[in-house]
């Protein structure tokens, strides 16, 4: 698989503060990277740098192109959907499609029409009259009708109801599976995207606190669901987090303690959400 995104020591330094500090990662076709972090952790700055709309130190290459210097060529392969609508509100759907075919060299208007025919969005509707779910769906349909190789989603389902979320992810997965593409998803809804990801990058105060393939990340931690009597033994294993339940407590532990913890209770798989929350709390 070819490398579609390469970031080496990407840093964004404002006059007083560092927004992003030495972030490096590589994405190949078929990879889905989850970009997680609280507000202000550096997600938006990193995305802006990838999109070439923010100057930065370090190196970024997307499809072999520099996002700042070769922005025009790159926009053919790079797309972005955020929670904010960017489609022109005064156009109707058919006009947006014609406009897209005029400005985007690889836009396939017939494909876009066909994709839209499976939705509730009529070609005659004005963008301003569409619900936020429909706007996101329209935006995704336009992108799916181009030769996009790298798609960056920034809180794509914010404000969407459950049915639209479901349709959105269904279309996204089907499209993604049909080609050699890479996805970057930034979201607060960790549990919603967890199982879509192949890789994750967790930011905290501008720095990476956890990065890697999902399988290797899960393998670094485990949960033991133990009776309260074992509390003092488990506390010596420097647990990252604990959650008191009825009769038992769930402890999130690093994998090096697995052998010691076995027999103290049920061993469970941690979710990405468990790990994410623990890392945000942990004083580093």
């Amino acid at each position: 698989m070819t490398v579609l995104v390469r970031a080496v020591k990407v840093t964004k330094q404002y006059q007083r503060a560092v927004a992003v500090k030495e972030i490096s990662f590589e994405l190949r076709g078929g990879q889905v990277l989850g970009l997680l972090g609280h507000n202000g952790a550096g997600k938006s700055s990193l995305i802006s740098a990838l999109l070439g709309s923010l100057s930065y130190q370090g190196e970024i290459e997307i499809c072999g192109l520099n996002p700042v210097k070769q922005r025009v060529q790159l926009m053919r392969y790079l797309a972005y959907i955020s929670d904010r609508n960017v489609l022109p509100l005064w156009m109707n759907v058919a006009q947006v499609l014609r406009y897209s075919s005029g400005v985007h060299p690889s836009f396939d208007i017939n494909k876009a029409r066909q994709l839209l025919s499976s939705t509730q969005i009529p070609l005659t509707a004005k963008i301003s009259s569409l619900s936020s779910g429909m706007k996101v769906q329209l935006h995704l349909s336009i992108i799916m009708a181009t030769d996009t190789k790298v798609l960056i989603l920034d809180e794509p389902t914010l404000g969407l109801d459950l049915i639209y979320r479901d349709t959105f992810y269904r279309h996204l997965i089907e499209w993604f599976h049909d080609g050699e593409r890479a996805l970057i998803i930034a979201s607060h809804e960790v549990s919603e995207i967890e199982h879509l990801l192949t890789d994750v990058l967790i930011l905290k105060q501008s720095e990476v606190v956890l990065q890697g393939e999902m399988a290797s990340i899960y393998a670094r931690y485990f949960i033991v669901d133990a009776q309260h009597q074992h509390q003092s033994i488990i506390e010596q294993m420097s647990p990252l987090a604990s959650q008191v339940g009825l009769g038992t407590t769930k402890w999130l532990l690093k994998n090096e303690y697995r052998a010691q913890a076995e027999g103290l209770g049920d061993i469970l798989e941690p979710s990405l959400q468990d790990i994410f929350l623990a890392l945000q709390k942990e004083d580093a």
Partner: protein
Amino acid sequence: MSDWNDKQPIFHQIKERIEKQILLGIWAEGMALPSVRTVAADLKINHLTVMKAYQLLVDDNLIEKKRGQGMFVLSGALEKLKAEKKQQFLTQDIPNIVQMLKRIDMPLHDFINELEKQIEEDK
């Protein structure tokens, strides 16, 4: 939505779901399983996870990959699964029953009577 448990990785849970469905006859021998793309989109999960689950089933000789056509349930899969489940019942479930009988002080003949009664009712 998708009710995954936290006892096992998801690909393992998918594998077990399919095994159970083969036992129930939902996927008959010789029948095609849904494509990786469909399962991924339906369950909103990464396609690699689905591929991993399918690969485990291939490794267990329960399904086979036909080039360009997808995954098919192998003939003999049902018998194989039944034998496996029987083994699992003998080595895992029966010891649990033994422990339970001890815990609730239930004499063996009471248990057997109850078992016979319920088997009769199920006919």
